[in-house]
């Protein structure tokens, strides 16, 4: 009873996460400035990490939940690179 309820709730959550990915990707593809795009990719990565954990619960395989940690750590690095590039260009020249 409770198991079926949790599984159906996770199915609804997966659909909601896919919709939020679409909205983030619209911002990545359309975004007027570079910080918009970087922030959208950042949020997309963190959302994707939560999505991976939910999917590992949904598929009942706890081994694949480790990838979310690596993804959420490495997506953040992209932020630092772009910020360093933009800031160095503005400050240095």
């Amino acid at each position: 009873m409770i198991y079926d309820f949790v599984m159906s709730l996770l199915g609804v959550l997966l659909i909601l996460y896919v919709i939020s990915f679409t909205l983030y990707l619209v911002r990545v593809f359309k975004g007027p400035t570079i910080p918009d795009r970087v922030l959208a990719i950042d949020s997309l990565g963190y959302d994707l990490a939560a999505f991976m954990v939910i999917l590992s619960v949904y598929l009942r395989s706890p081994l694949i939940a480790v990838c979310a940690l690596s993804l959420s750590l490495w997506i953040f690095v992209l932020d630092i690179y772009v910020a360093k590039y933009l800031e160095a260009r503005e400050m240095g020249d």
Partner: protein
Amino acid sequence: MDVTPLIIAFIAAIISVVSTWLAVQEKDLIIATLFSAVQSTCYALLYYLLMAPDIVLVYLPVSVGLLPLLTITLIKKTERFEE
């Protein structure tokens, strides 16, 4: 058989194709690097959905960590806009 991972894998594959096309077309090379990062993230999700978490753990540092670092360093040494 549950088809939910297959549908999500289909969506991720289409998004990766679109972002690869935009990365090739884009004239601003920083934005092209960002599109390439989106494509790498979609590939990581694809590997994850195909039940290969070890490949995800190796692919993420290379594609999201090393590749944008090298590309942005190169853009910094040369020009930002493609002619």
